[in-house]
Protein backbone atom coordinates (compact mmCIF):
# COMPACT_ATOMS: atom_id res chain seq x y z
CA UNK A 1 0.00 0.00 0.00
CA UNK A 2 1.30 3.43 -0.85
CA UNK A 3 1.63 6.49 1.28
CA UNK A 4 -1.30 8.28 -0.32
CA UNK A 5 -4.27 9.40 1.72
CA UNK A 6 -7.84 10.15 0.79
CA UNK A 7 -8.84 13.73 0.02
CA UNK A 8 -12.45 14.80 0.39
CA UNK A 9 -13.58 18.27 -0.60
CA UNK A 10 -17.01 18.91 0.86
CA UNK A 11 -19.31 21.78 -0.19
CA UNK A 12 -16.39 24.16 -0.61
CA UNK A 13 -17.12 27.69 -1.79
CA UNK A 14 -14.79 30.62 -2.20
CA UNK A 15 -15.93 34.19 -2.72
CA UNK A 16 -13.86 37.24 -3.58
CA UNK A 17 -16.23 40.02 -2.60
CA UNK A 18 -19.35 39.28 -4.60
CA UNK A 19 -17.52 37.13 -7.14
CA UNK A 20 -18.04 33.42 -6.60
CA UNK A 21 -14.76 31.77 -7.60
CA UNK A 22 -15.87 28.36 -6.33
CA UNK A 23 -19.40 27.17 -5.68
CA UNK A 24 -20.28 24.04 -3.71
CA UNK A 25 -17.35 21.95 -4.84
CA UNK A 26 -17.58 18.27 -3.90
CA UNK A 27 -14.71 16.00 -4.79
CA UNK A 28 -13.41 12.71 -3.45
CA UNK A 29 -9.99 11.41 -4.40
CA UNK A 30 -9.32 7.93 -3.11
CA UNK A 31 -5.90 7.12 -1.67
CA UNK A 32 -3.37 6.71 -4.46
CA UNK A 33 -5.60 8.11 -7.20
CA UNK A 34 -4.36 10.51 -9.86
CA UNK A 35 -6.99 13.16 -10.43
CA UNK A 36 -6.76 16.00 -12.93
CA UNK A 37 -8.69 19.20 -12.47
CA UNK A 38 -9.30 20.37 -16.00
CA UNK A 39 -10.63 23.77 -17.02
CA UNK A 40 -9.87 26.84 -19.04
CA UNK A 41 -8.30 29.92 -17.45
CA UNK A 42 -10.67 31.67 -15.09
CA UNK A 43 -12.64 28.48 -14.48
CA UNK A 44 -11.69 28.37 -10.81
CA UNK A 45 -9.32 25.42 -11.07
CA UNK A 46 -6.36 27.34 -9.66
CA UNK A 47 -8.48 28.72 -6.82
CA UNK A 48 -9.49 25.16 -5.97
CA UNK A 49 -5.83 24.15 -5.85
CA UNK A 50 -4.97 27.13 -3.64
CA UNK A 51 -7.78 26.25 -1.26
CA UNK A 52 -6.65 22.62 -1.04
CA UNK A 53 -3.03 23.71 -0.54
CA UNK A 54 -4.03 26.21 2.11
CA UNK A 55 -2.73 29.32 0.35
CA UNK A 56 -6.28 30.63 0.51
CA UNK A 57 -8.99 29.97 3.08
CA UNK A 58 -12.26 28.69 1.65
CA UNK A 59 -15.30 30.81 2.45
CA UNK A 60 -17.32 27.77 3.49
CA UNK A 61 -17.10 24.00 3.39
CA UNK A 62 -14.66 21.40 4.61
CA UNK A 63 -11.53 19.72 3.33
CA UNK A 64 -10.62 16.32 4.72
CA UNK A 65 -7.22 14.70 4.33
CA UNK A 66 -7.32 11.15 5.64
CA UNK A 67 -10.56 11.96 7.47
CA UNK A 68 -9.22 15.05 9.25
CA UNK A 69 -10.72 18.45 8.47
CA UNK A 70 -7.88 20.78 7.46
CA UNK A 71 -9.97 23.66 6.09
CA UNK A 72 -8.68 26.02 8.78
CA UNK A 73 -5.24 24.42 9.24
CA UNK A 74 -2.44 26.72 8.05
CA UNK A 75 -0.70 25.65 4.90
CA UNK A 76 2.57 24.66 6.55
CA UNK A 77 0.87 22.16 8.87
CA UNK A 78 -1.03 20.27 6.16
CA UNK A 79 1.91 18.09 5.05
CA UNK A 80 1.14 18.42 1.35
CA UNK A 81 3.64 18.31 -1.50
CA UNK A 82 3.36 20.68 -4.42
CA UNK A 83 5.01 21.10 -7.78
CA UNK A 84 4.74 24.71 -8.91
CA UNK A 85 4.20 25.74 -12.49
CA UNK A 86 7.40 27.81 -12.54
CA UNK A 87 9.06 25.22 -10.24
CA UNK A 88 9.74 27.83 -7.50
CA UNK A 89 13.21 26.46 -6.86
CA UNK A 90 15.21 28.53 -4.39
CA UNK A 91 17.74 30.36 -6.58
CA UNK A 92 20.29 30.81 -3.79
CA UNK A 93 20.42 27.11 -2.92
CA UNK A 94 22.05 24.27 -4.83
CA UNK A 95 20.12 21.33 -6.22
CA UNK A 96 20.97 19.23 -3.16
CA UNK A 97 20.10 22.06 -0.76
CA UNK A 98 16.78 22.62 -2.52
CA UNK A 99 15.86 18.96 -2.19
CA UNK A 100 17.04 18.91 1.43
CA UNK A 101 14.97 21.96 2.40
CA UNK A 102 11.85 20.10 3.59
CA UNK A 103 14.00 17.51 5.39
CA UNK A 104 15.95 20.21 7.23
CA UNK A 105 12.63 21.72 8.23
CA UNK A 106 11.65 18.36 9.70
CA UNK A 107 14.91 18.40 11.68
CA UNK A 108 16.27 15.13 10.29
CA UNK A 109 19.87 14.20 11.08
CA UNK A 110 22.43 15.43 8.60
CA UNK A 111 23.54 11.91 7.62
CA UNK A 112 19.94 10.89 6.96
CA UNK A 113 19.34 13.99 4.88
CA UNK A 114 22.46 13.37 2.79
CA UNK A 115 21.49 9.75 2.26
CA UNK A 116 17.92 10.57 1.21
CA UNK A 117 18.99 13.40 -1.07
CA UNK A 118 21.53 11.14 -2.76
CA UNK A 119 18.92 8.44 -3.30
CA UNK A 120 16.45 10.98 -4.66
CA UNK A 121 19.05 12.45 -7.03
CA UNK A 122 19.60 9.05 -8.58
CA UNK A 123 15.83 8.47 -8.80
CA UNK A 124 15.48 11.65 -10.87
CA UNK A 125 18.71 10.86 -12.76
CA UNK A 126 20.58 14.00 -11.76
CA UNK A 127 23.38 12.33 -9.78
CA UNK A 128 26.24 14.55 -10.89
CA UNK A 129 24.41 17.84 -10.50
CA UNK A 130 23.98 18.07 -6.73
CA UNK A 131 26.08 21.22 -6.39
CA UNK A 132 24.65 23.11 -9.35
CA UNK A 133 22.43 26.12 -8.86
CA UNK A 134 18.92 25.94 -10.36
CA UNK A 135 19.72 28.52 -13.04
CA UNK A 136 22.50 26.25 -14.32
CA UNK A 137 19.96 23.54 -15.16
CA UNK A 138 17.71 23.06 -18.18
CA UNK A 139 13.95 23.40 -17.82
CA UNK A 140 13.42 19.65 -17.67
CA UNK A 141 16.13 19.22 -15.05
CA UNK A 142 14.69 22.04 -12.96
CA UNK A 143 11.31 20.37 -13.05
CA UNK A 144 12.75 17.08 -11.89
CA UNK A 145 14.46 18.85 -8.98
CA UNK A 146 11.16 20.55 -8.11
CA UNK A 147 9.38 17.20 -8.21
CA UNK A 148 12.07 15.62 -6.04
CA UNK A 149 11.74 18.43 -3.52
CA UNK A 150 7.96 17.99 -3.45
CA UNK A 151 8.00 14.24 -2.79
CA UNK A 152 11.13 13.66 -0.69
CA UNK A 153 9.19 14.03 2.57
CA UNK A 154 6.59 11.52 1.39
CA UNK A 155 3.58 13.80 1.53
CA UNK A 156 0.34 11.81 1.40
CA UNK A 157 -1.09 14.32 -1.04
CA UNK A 158 0.77 15.80 -4.01
CA UNK A 159 -0.48 18.84 -5.91
CA UNK A 160 0.71 19.64 -9.41
CA UNK A 161 0.08 23.09 -10.88
CA UNK A 162 0.20 22.89 -14.69
CA UNK A 163 3.07 20.41 -14.31
CA UNK A 164 4.02 20.30 -17.98
CA UNK A 165 3.02 23.82 -18.98
CA UNK A 166 6.52 25.23 -19.32
CA UNK A 167 8.15 22.31 -21.14
CA UNK A 168 8.60 21.75 -24.85
CA UNK A 169 6.75 18.97 -26.57
CA UNK A 170 9.28 16.13 -26.40
CA UNK A 171 10.14 16.77 -22.78
CA UNK A 172 6.45 16.90 -21.98
CA UNK A 173 5.97 13.39 -23.17
CA UNK A 174 8.87 12.05 -21.09
CA UNK A 175 7.89 13.97 -17.98
CA UNK A 176 4.28 12.82 -18.31
CA UNK A 177 5.43 9.22 -17.93
CA UNK A 178 8.04 10.13 -15.34
CA UNK A 179 5.55 11.87 -13.06
CA UNK A 180 2.98 9.13 -13.54
CA UNK A 181 5.60 6.45 -12.79
CA UNK A 182 6.95 8.10 -9.64
CA UNK A 183 3.60 9.02 -8.13
CA UNK A 184 2.25 5.58 -8.93
CA UNK A 185 5.27 3.83 -7.44
CA UNK A 186 4.97 5.80 -4.21
CA UNK A 187 1.19 5.46 -4.22
CA UNK A 188 0.66 9.18 -3.71
CA UNK A 189 -2.74 10.74 -4.04
CA UNK A 190 -2.08 13.28 -6.76
CA UNK A 191 -4.11 16.23 -7.90
CA UNK A 192 -3.02 17.93 -11.07
CA UNK A 193 -4.44 21.22 -12.27
CA UNK A 194 -4.22 21.66 -16.00
CA UNK A 195 -5.83 23.19 -19.05
CA UNK A 196 -4.34 20.55 -21.33
CA UNK A 197 -6.84 17.82 -22.23
CA UNK A 198 -4.27 15.43 -23.63
CA UNK A 199 -2.23 15.70 -20.46
CA UNK A 200 -5.30 15.08 -18.29
CA UNK A 201 -6.37 12.09 -20.38
CA UNK A 202 -3.01 10.38 -20.48
CA UNK A 203 -2.17 10.78 -16.79
CA UNK A 204 -5.37 10.59 -14.80
CA UNK A 205 -7.47 7.92 -13.16
CA UNK A 206 -10.21 10.50 -12.93
CA UNK A 207 -10.83 13.90 -14.43
CA UNK A 208 -12.74 16.71 -12.82
CA UNK A 209 -13.99 19.29 -15.29
CA UNK A 210 -14.41 22.74 -13.79
CA UNK A 211 -16.10 25.73 -15.32
CA UNK A 212 -17.49 28.94 -13.80
CA UNK A 213 -16.45 27.79 -10.33
CA UNK A 214 -18.51 24.61 -10.52
CA UNK A 215 -17.70 20.97 -11.18
CA UNK A 216 -19.27 20.02 -14.50
CA UNK A 217 -18.34 16.35 -14.38
CA UNK A 218 -16.10 14.15 -12.26
CA UNK A 219 -15.46 10.78 -13.82
CA UNK A 220 -12.98 8.50 -15.53
CA UNK A 221 -11.45 9.80 -18.78
CA UNK A 222 -13.41 7.22 -20.84
CA UNK A 223 -16.74 8.20 -19.28
CA UNK A 224 -16.02 11.87 -19.73
CA UNK A 225 -15.23 11.39 -23.39
CA UNK A 226 -17.97 8.93 -24.18
CA UNK A 227 -20.71 9.99 -21.82
CA UNK A 228 -20.35 13.72 -21.20
CA UNK A 229 -22.99 14.71 -18.69
CA UNK A 230 -23.80 18.08 -20.17
CA UNK A 231 -23.33 20.27 -23.17
CA UNK A 232 -20.36 22.13 -21.69
CA UNK A 233 -18.37 18.95 -21.12
CA UNK A 234 -19.25 17.56 -24.56
CA UNK A 235 -18.09 20.73 -26.28
CA UNK A 236 -15.05 21.15 -24.04
CA UNK A 237 -13.67 17.68 -24.63
CA UNK A 238 -12.38 17.46 -28.17
CA UNK A 239 -14.51 18.03 -31.26
CA UNK A 240 -18.10 16.98 -31.24
CA UNK A 241 -21.48 17.70 -32.82
CA UNK A 242 -24.40 18.82 -30.68
CA UNK A 243 -27.72 17.87 -32.24
CA UNK A 244 -31.22 18.63 -30.94
CA UNK A 245 -33.82 15.92 -30.42
CA UNK A 246 -37.49 16.94 -30.36
CA UNK A 247 -40.52 15.28 -28.74
CA UNK A 248 -38.24 12.71 -27.18
CA UNK A 249 -39.70 9.47 -25.81
CA UNK A 250 -37.77 7.62 -23.10
CA UNK A 251 -37.95 3.85 -22.95
CA UNK A 252 -36.11 1.63 -20.49
CA UNK A 253 -34.20 -1.17 -22.20
CA UNK A 254 -31.63 -3.77 -21.24
CA UNK A 255 -28.55 -1.94 -19.99
CA UNK A 256 -29.84 1.60 -20.22
CA UNK A 257 -32.40 3.83 -21.80
CA UNK A 258 -33.46 4.27 -25.40
CA UNK A 259 -34.47 7.76 -26.44
CA UNK A 260 -36.19 8.38 -29.72
CA UNK A 261 -37.50 11.53 -31.28
CA UNK A 262 -37.46 13.78 -34.29
CA UNK A 263 -34.20 15.37 -35.31
CA UNK A 264 -33.36 17.77 -38.12
CA UNK A 265 -30.51 15.41 -38.93
CA UNK A 266 -32.37 12.22 -39.65
CA UNK A 267 -35.52 11.66 -41.65
CA UNK A 268 -38.05 9.79 -39.56
CA UNK A 269 -37.25 8.63 -36.02
CA UNK A 270 -33.81 9.22 -34.58
CA UNK A 271 -32.84 6.76 -31.85
CA UNK A 272 -30.02 7.06 -29.39
CA UNK A 273 -29.09 4.96 -26.38
CA UNK A 274 -27.53 5.82 -23.04
CA UNK A 275 -26.17 3.48 -20.37
CA UNK A 276 -28.05 5.54 -17.76
CA UNK A 277 -30.91 3.32 -16.52
CA UNK A 278 -32.87 5.94 -14.64
CA UNK A 279 -33.27 9.43 -16.00
CA UNK A 280 -34.90 11.75 -13.50
CA UNK A 281 -35.34 14.71 -15.75
CA UNK A 282 -36.93 13.34 -18.90
CA UNK A 283 -36.49 16.49 -20.97
CA UNK A 284 -38.76 16.28 -24.05
CA UNK A 285 -36.31 18.38 -26.06
CA UNK A 286 -32.79 17.28 -25.13
CA UNK A 287 -29.60 17.46 -27.14
CA UNK A 288 -27.24 14.67 -27.96
CA UNK A 289 -23.53 14.62 -28.69
CA UNK A 290 -22.18 12.80 -31.70
CA UNK A 291 -18.40 12.50 -32.07
CA UNK A 292 -16.98 12.89 -35.60
CA UNK A 293 -15.44 9.42 -35.41
CA UNK A 294 -18.88 7.89 -34.65
CA UNK A 295 -20.18 9.01 -38.04
CA UNK A 296 -19.45 6.48 -40.78
CA UNK A 297 -19.77 6.31 -44.50
CA UNK A 298 -22.52 3.80 -45.30
CA UNK A 299 -21.15 1.18 -47.67
CA UNK A 300 -23.08 -1.57 -49.41
CA UNK A 301 -24.44 -4.14 -47.01
CA UNK A 302 -23.80 -2.07 -43.88
CA UNK A 303 -26.62 -0.95 -41.61
CA UNK A 304 -26.68 1.71 -38.92
CA UNK A 305 -29.37 2.69 -36.45
CA UNK A 306 -29.57 6.13 -38.02
CA UNK A 307 -28.67 7.24 -41.50
CA UNK A 308 -28.76 10.59 -43.24
CA UNK A 309 -27.73 12.23 -46.47
CA UNK A 310 -25.21 15.04 -46.38
CA UNK A 311 -23.21 17.26 -48.69
CA UNK A 312 -19.48 17.21 -47.96
CA UNK A 313 -17.35 20.33 -48.17
CA UNK A 314 -14.44 22.14 -46.51
CA UNK A 315 -12.13 19.20 -46.15
CA UNK A 316 -8.71 19.28 -44.51
CA UNK A 317 -6.17 16.60 -45.34
CA UNK A 318 -4.33 15.35 -42.22
CA UNK A 319 -2.28 12.42 -43.47
CA UNK A 320 -4.22 9.35 -42.41
CA UNK A 321 -7.44 11.24 -41.88
CA UNK A 322 -9.50 13.81 -43.69
CA UNK A 323 -11.51 16.22 -41.59
CA UNK A 324 -14.59 17.57 -43.32
CA UNK A 325 -17.88 19.36 -42.82
CA UNK A 326 -21.07 17.51 -43.66
CA UNK A 327 -24.04 19.79 -44.39
CA UNK A 328 -27.57 18.60 -43.65
CA UNK A 329 -30.08 21.41 -44.04
CA UNK A 330 -28.98 24.09 -41.57
CA UNK A 331 -26.76 21.70 -39.64
CA UNK A 332 -23.05 21.52 -40.29
CA UNK A 333 -21.40 18.44 -38.78
CA UNK A 334 -17.74 17.73 -38.11
CA UNK A 335 -16.89 14.37 -39.66
CA UNK A 336 -13.71 12.42 -40.33
CA UNK A 337 -12.98 9.95 -43.10
CA UNK A 338 -10.08 7.68 -43.78
CA UNK A 339 -8.05 8.90 -46.75
CA UNK A 340 -8.96 5.72 -48.60
CA UNK A 341 -12.71 6.24 -48.21
CA UNK A 342 -12.47 9.92 -48.99
CA UNK A 343 -10.74 9.35 -52.33
CA UNK A 344 -13.59 7.19 -53.53
CA UNK A 345 -16.28 9.71 -52.68
CA UNK A 346 -18.11 11.64 -55.35
CA UNK A 347 -18.27 15.03 -53.71
CA UNK A 348 -20.69 16.45 -56.26
CA UNK A 349 -23.52 14.29 -54.90
CA UNK A 350 -24.86 13.94 -51.35
CA UNK A 351 -23.37 10.93 -49.53
CA UNK A 352 -25.10 8.51 -47.19
CA UNK A 353 -23.76 8.64 -43.62
CA UNK A 354 -24.80 6.66 -40.57
CA UNK A 355 -24.20 6.29 -36.83
CA UNK A 356 -25.16 3.80 -34.17
CA UNK A 357 -27.40 4.67 -31.27
CA UNK A 358 -24.74 3.42 -28.83
CA UNK A 359 -22.15 5.94 -29.96
CA UNK A 360 -24.01 9.00 -28.81
CA UNK A 361 -24.44 10.75 -25.52
CA UNK A 362 -27.60 12.42 -24.34
CA UNK A 363 -27.04 15.83 -22.82
CA UNK A 364 -29.03 17.78 -20.31
CA UNK A 365 -28.65 21.45 -19.62
Amino acid at each position, binding site marked *: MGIGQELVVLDVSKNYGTFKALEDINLTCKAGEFVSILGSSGSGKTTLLKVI*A*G*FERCSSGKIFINGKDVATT*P*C*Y*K*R*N*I*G*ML*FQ*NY*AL*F*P*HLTVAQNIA*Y*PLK*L*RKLKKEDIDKKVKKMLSLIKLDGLADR*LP*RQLSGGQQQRVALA*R*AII*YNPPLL*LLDEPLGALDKNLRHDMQFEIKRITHELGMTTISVTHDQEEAFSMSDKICIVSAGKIQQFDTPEKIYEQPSNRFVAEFMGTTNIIPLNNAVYEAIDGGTKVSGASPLVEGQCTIKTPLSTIKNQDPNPFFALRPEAIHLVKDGQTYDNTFKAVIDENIYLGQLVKAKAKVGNLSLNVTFSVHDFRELDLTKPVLLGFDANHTAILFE
Partner: protein
Amino acid sequence: MSKETFSNNLYDKAKWLLLIIPLLYVVLTMGLPLLDIIKKSLISKQGFTFGFYIKAFTEPLYLSVLFSTVKIAFIVTLVCLVLAYPMAYLSVNAKTKKVRVLITAGVLIPYWVSMLVRIFAWQIILQNNGIVNQALLFIGFVKEPAKLLYTDLAVTISLVHILIPFMFLSLQNTMKQIDKNLMLASSIMGGSKFYGFTHVFLPLSKSGMLSGSIMVFVLSLGFYIAPALLGGPDNMMLSNLIEKSMTNFNWGLASALSVELLVLVYLIIAIAFKLTGNIFVKNA
Protein backbone atom coordinates in the same frame (compact mmCIF):
# COMPACT_ATOMS: atom_id res chain seq x y z
CA MET B 1 36.30 41.13 -45.52
CA SER B 2 32.64 40.20 -45.24
CA LYS B 3 30.00 42.85 -45.14
CA GLU B 4 29.00 41.90 -41.66
CA THR B 5 32.40 42.41 -40.04
CA PHE B 6 32.73 45.67 -41.91
CA SER B 7 29.48 47.03 -40.49
CA ASN B 8 30.48 45.69 -37.09
CA ASN B 9 33.71 47.65 -37.29
CA LEU B 10 31.81 50.74 -38.27
CA TYR B 11 29.47 50.20 -35.38
CA ASP B 12 32.42 49.85 -33.00
CA LYS B 13 33.88 53.12 -34.25
CA ALA B 14 30.56 54.94 -34.03
CA LYS B 15 30.19 53.68 -30.47
CA TRP B 16 33.44 55.40 -29.47
CA LEU B 17 32.44 58.52 -31.32
CA LEU B 18 29.27 58.71 -29.28
CA LEU B 19 31.26 58.32 -26.10
CA ILE B 20 33.58 61.23 -26.86
CA ILE B 21 31.14 64.01 -25.98
CA PRO B 22 30.27 62.84 -22.46
CA LEU B 23 33.86 61.75 -21.98
CA LEU B 24 35.14 65.23 -22.85
CA TYR B 25 32.59 66.74 -20.51
CA VAL B 26 33.69 64.55 -17.61
CA VAL B 27 37.38 65.11 -18.27
CA LEU B 28 37.01 68.89 -18.51
CA THR B 29 34.68 69.42 -15.57
CA MET B 30 35.78 66.61 -13.26
CA GLY B 31 39.12 65.20 -14.31
CA LEU B 32 41.12 68.40 -14.72
CA PRO B 33 39.93 70.03 -11.48
CA LEU B 34 40.66 66.76 -9.72
CA LEU B 35 44.20 66.74 -11.07
CA ASP B 36 44.51 70.32 -9.87
CA ILE B 37 43.35 69.28 -6.40
CA ILE B 38 45.91 66.48 -6.32
CA LYS B 39 48.59 68.92 -7.49
CA LYS B 40 47.63 71.47 -4.83
CA SER B 41 47.72 68.76 -2.15
CA LEU B 42 51.33 67.94 -3.03
CA ILE B 43 52.82 71.38 -3.59
CA SER B 44 53.39 74.08 -0.99
CA LYS B 45 55.14 77.44 -1.25
CA GLN B 46 58.38 75.59 -0.58
CA GLY B 47 57.78 73.13 -3.42
CA PHE B 48 56.87 69.44 -3.48
CA THR B 49 55.74 68.07 -0.12
CA PHE B 50 53.80 65.32 1.61
CA GLY B 51 53.30 67.70 4.50
CA PHE B 52 49.55 68.21 4.01
CA TYR B 53 48.92 64.46 4.01
CA ILE B 54 51.15 63.95 7.04
CA LYS B 55 49.20 66.67 8.81
CA ALA B 56 45.86 65.18 7.77
CA PHE B 57 46.79 61.79 9.15
CA THR B 58 48.66 62.82 12.32
CA GLU B 59 46.87 65.88 13.68
CA PRO B 60 44.48 64.49 16.38
CA LEU B 61 41.71 66.91 15.43
CA TYR B 62 41.71 65.82 11.80
CA LEU B 63 41.90 62.16 12.74
CA SER B 64 38.98 62.50 15.11
CA VAL B 65 36.95 64.19 12.37
CA LEU B 66 37.77 61.31 10.04
CA PHE B 67 36.82 58.80 12.70
CA SER B 68 33.54 60.50 13.60
CA THR B 69 32.65 60.89 9.91
CA VAL B 70 33.04 57.16 9.36
CA LYS B 71 31.18 56.47 12.63
CA ILE B 72 28.21 58.67 11.70
CA ALA B 73 28.09 57.23 8.18
CA PHE B 74 28.11 53.72 9.64
CA ILE B 75 25.34 54.45 12.15
CA VAL B 76 23.24 56.22 9.51
CA THR B 77 23.60 53.22 7.19
CA LEU B 78 22.63 50.77 9.91
CA VAL B 79 19.59 52.80 11.02
CA CYS B 80 18.47 53.26 7.40
CA LEU B 81 18.74 49.51 6.82
CA VAL B 82 16.81 48.60 9.96
CA LEU B 83 14.07 51.16 9.29
CA ALA B 84 13.80 50.72 5.53
CA TYR B 85 13.77 46.91 5.50
CA PRO B 86 10.34 46.39 7.07
CA MET B 87 8.91 49.28 5.04
CA ALA B 88 10.25 47.87 1.79
CA TYR B 89 9.03 44.41 2.80
CA LEU B 90 5.51 45.69 3.34
CA SER B 91 5.59 47.83 0.22
CA VAL B 92 6.14 44.64 -1.77
CA ASN B 93 4.29 42.02 0.25
CA ALA B 94 1.31 43.81 1.83
CA LYS B 95 -1.95 42.10 0.85
CA THR B 96 -3.82 45.21 -0.28
CA LYS B 97 -2.56 47.48 -3.01
CA LYS B 98 -3.59 50.53 -0.98
CA VAL B 99 -1.05 49.73 1.74
CA ARG B 100 1.70 49.05 -0.81
CA VAL B 101 1.14 52.35 -2.60
CA LEU B 102 0.77 54.30 0.64
CA ILE B 103 4.11 53.10 1.99
CA THR B 104 5.96 53.84 -1.21
CA ALA B 105 4.38 57.29 -1.44
CA GLY B 106 5.15 57.92 2.23
CA VAL B 107 8.83 57.31 1.62
CA LEU B 108 9.12 59.07 -1.73
CA ILE B 109 7.04 62.24 -1.26
CA PRO B 110 9.40 63.75 1.37
CA TYR B 111 12.23 62.92 -1.02
CA TRP B 112 10.81 65.44 -3.49
CA VAL B 113 10.81 68.22 -0.89
CA SER B 114 13.91 70.41 -0.99
CA MET B 115 16.65 69.08 1.23
CA LEU B 116 17.27 72.52 2.75
CA VAL B 117 13.64 72.80 3.77
CA ARG B 118 13.84 69.45 5.51
CA ILE B 119 17.04 70.37 7.33
CA PHE B 120 15.54 73.65 8.54
CA ALA B 121 12.52 71.66 9.67
CA TRP B 122 14.79 69.51 11.81
CA GLN B 123 16.34 72.66 13.29
CA ILE B 124 12.90 73.75 14.42
CA ILE B 125 11.87 70.32 15.65
CA LEU B 126 15.05 69.73 17.63
CA GLN B 127 15.63 73.20 19.12
CA ASN B 128 15.38 73.80 22.87
CA ASN B 129 11.72 74.81 22.74
CA GLY B 130 10.97 72.52 19.80
CA ILE B 131 8.31 69.87 19.74
CA VAL B 132 10.62 67.04 20.84
CA ASN B 133 11.87 68.85 23.91
CA GLN B 134 8.36 70.00 24.80
CA ALA B 135 7.18 66.41 24.66
CA LEU B 136 10.13 65.18 26.73
CA LEU B 137 9.49 67.89 29.33
CA PHE B 138 5.76 67.13 29.36
CA ILE B 139 6.19 63.44 30.13
CA GLY B 140 8.87 64.32 32.66
CA PHE B 141 11.62 62.44 30.91
CA VAL B 142 13.93 65.47 31.29
CA LYS B 143 13.87 68.34 33.78
CA GLU B 144 15.32 70.96 31.45
CA PRO B 145 15.45 70.99 27.63
CA ALA B 146 17.92 68.40 26.33
CA LYS B 147 20.56 69.57 23.92
CA LEU B 148 19.49 67.93 20.67
CA LEU B 149 20.36 70.51 18.08
CA TYR B 150 24.01 70.89 17.02
CA THR B 151 24.91 67.33 18.05
CA ASP B 152 25.87 64.12 16.26
CA LEU B 153 22.37 62.90 17.02
CA ALA B 154 20.79 65.73 15.04
CA VAL B 155 23.13 65.07 12.13
CA THR B 156 22.39 61.34 12.25
CA ILE B 157 18.63 61.85 12.40
CA SER B 158 18.57 64.24 9.45
CA LEU B 159 20.93 62.08 7.39
CA VAL B 160 18.73 59.04 7.99
CA HIS B 161 15.74 61.10 6.95
CA ILE B 162 17.43 62.34 3.79
CA LEU B 163 19.07 59.08 2.72
CA ILE B 164 16.45 56.49 3.64
CA PRO B 165 14.75 56.62 0.19
CA PHE B 166 17.98 55.34 -1.38
CA MET B 167 17.99 52.33 0.93
CA PHE B 168 14.25 51.84 0.52
CA LEU B 169 14.31 51.91 -3.28
CA SER B 170 17.29 49.59 -3.46
CA LEU B 171 15.63 47.08 -1.12
CA GLN B 172 12.25 47.40 -2.81
CA ASN B 173 13.79 46.81 -6.21
CA THR B 174 15.46 43.61 -5.05
CA MET B 175 12.42 42.37 -3.12
CA LYS B 176 10.13 42.94 -6.11
CA GLN B 177 12.19 40.44 -8.05
CA ILE B 178 11.76 37.69 -5.46
CA ASP B 179 9.21 35.21 -6.81
CA LYS B 180 6.20 35.07 -4.46
CA ASN B 181 5.88 31.35 -5.14
CA LEU B 182 9.16 30.78 -3.29
CA MET B 183 7.55 31.68 0.01
CA LEU B 184 4.52 29.54 -0.83
CA ALA B 185 6.85 26.66 -1.70
CA SER B 186 8.60 27.04 1.64
CA SER B 187 5.31 27.05 3.50
CA ILE B 188 3.79 24.05 1.71
CA MET B 189 6.93 22.07 2.54
CA GLY B 190 6.25 22.79 6.19
CA GLY B 191 8.06 26.06 6.83
CA SER B 192 6.41 28.68 9.02
CA LYS B 193 6.32 32.24 7.71
CA PHE B 194 9.29 33.09 9.89
CA TYR B 195 11.32 30.10 8.68
CA GLY B 196 10.59 31.02 5.07
CA PHE B 197 11.61 34.61 5.75
CA THR B 198 14.94 33.76 7.36
CA HIS B 199 15.85 30.94 4.96
CA VAL B 200 14.52 32.25 1.66
CA PHE B 201 13.49 35.89 1.65
CA LEU B 202 16.30 37.36 3.72
CA PRO B 203 19.15 35.66 1.81
CA LEU B 204 17.57 36.64 -1.49
CA SER B 205 17.27 40.29 -0.43
CA LYS B 206 20.96 40.46 0.51
CA SER B 207 22.07 42.12 -2.71
CA GLY B 208 19.57 44.93 -2.16
CA MET B 209 20.79 45.36 1.41
CA LEU B 210 24.35 45.64 0.20
CA SER B 211 23.77 48.02 -2.69
CA GLY B 212 21.51 50.21 -0.54
CA SER B 213 24.07 50.26 2.24
CA ILE B 214 26.90 51.24 -0.09
CA MET B 215 24.86 54.07 -1.51
CA VAL B 216 23.82 55.44 1.89
CA PHE B 217 27.29 55.00 3.39
CA VAL B 218 29.08 56.73 0.55
CA LEU B 219 26.55 59.57 0.42
CA SER B 220 26.78 60.14 4.19
CA LEU B 221 30.58 60.19 4.11
CA GLY B 222 30.63 63.24 1.89
CA PHE B 223 27.54 64.98 3.24
CA TYR B 224 28.07 68.70 3.82
CA ILE B 225 24.88 70.65 4.37
CA ALA B 226 23.29 68.61 7.19
CA PRO B 227 26.35 68.58 9.49
CA ALA B 228 26.96 72.25 8.63
CA LEU B 229 23.49 73.31 9.77
CA LEU B 230 22.67 70.73 12.44
CA GLY B 231 26.06 69.68 13.81
CA GLY B 232 27.99 71.68 16.37
CA PRO B 233 31.47 73.12 15.95
CA ASP B 234 32.80 70.08 17.79
CA ASN B 235 31.07 67.53 15.59
CA MET B 236 32.38 68.34 12.18
CA MET B 237 32.34 65.87 9.37
CA LEU B 238 35.07 65.58 6.78
CA SER B 239 33.39 67.79 4.20
CA ASN B 240 32.93 70.56 6.77
CA LEU B 241 36.59 70.35 7.67
CA ILE B 242 37.48 70.71 4.01
CA GLU B 243 35.27 73.77 3.74
CA LYS B 244 36.83 75.27 6.85
CA SER B 245 40.35 74.76 5.51
CA MET B 246 39.30 76.40 2.27
CA THR B 247 37.86 79.46 4.01
CA ASN B 248 41.17 79.68 5.89
CA PHE B 249 42.89 79.71 2.49
CA ASN B 250 44.73 76.51 3.39
CA TRP B 251 44.23 75.08 -0.07
CA GLY B 252 46.86 72.42 0.39
CA LEU B 253 45.22 70.90 3.44
CA ALA B 254 41.74 71.16 1.91
CA SER B 255 43.03 69.36 -1.16
CA ALA B 256 44.73 66.63 0.87
CA LEU B 257 41.54 66.05 2.88
CA SER B 258 39.51 65.95 -0.34
CA VAL B 259 41.81 63.33 -1.78
CA GLU B 260 41.54 61.42 1.47
CA LEU B 261 37.71 61.43 1.26
CA LEU B 262 37.83 60.45 -2.40
CA VAL B 263 40.17 57.52 -1.74
CA LEU B 264 38.05 56.42 1.20
CA VAL B 265 34.91 56.37 -0.95
CA TYR B 266 36.61 54.48 -3.77
CA LEU B 267 38.02 51.99 -1.30
CA ILE B 268 34.56 51.27 0.08
CA ILE B 269 33.07 50.98 -3.39
CA ALA B 270 35.86 48.60 -4.39
CA ILE B 271 35.33 46.40 -1.34
CA ALA B 272 31.58 46.45 -1.85
CA PHE B 273 31.93 45.54 -5.53
CA LYS B 274 34.05 42.61 -4.51
CA LEU B 275 31.36 41.49 -2.07
CA THR B 276 28.34 42.20 -4.24
CA GLY B 277 30.13 40.92 -7.31
CA ASN B 278 29.85 37.46 -5.84
CA ILE B 279 26.27 37.99 -4.89
CA PHE B 280 25.34 39.26 -8.33
CA VAL B 281 26.92 36.20 -9.89
CA LYS B 282 25.01 33.96 -7.50
CA ASN B 283 21.61 35.52 -8.07
CA ALA B 284 21.87 36.55 -11.67
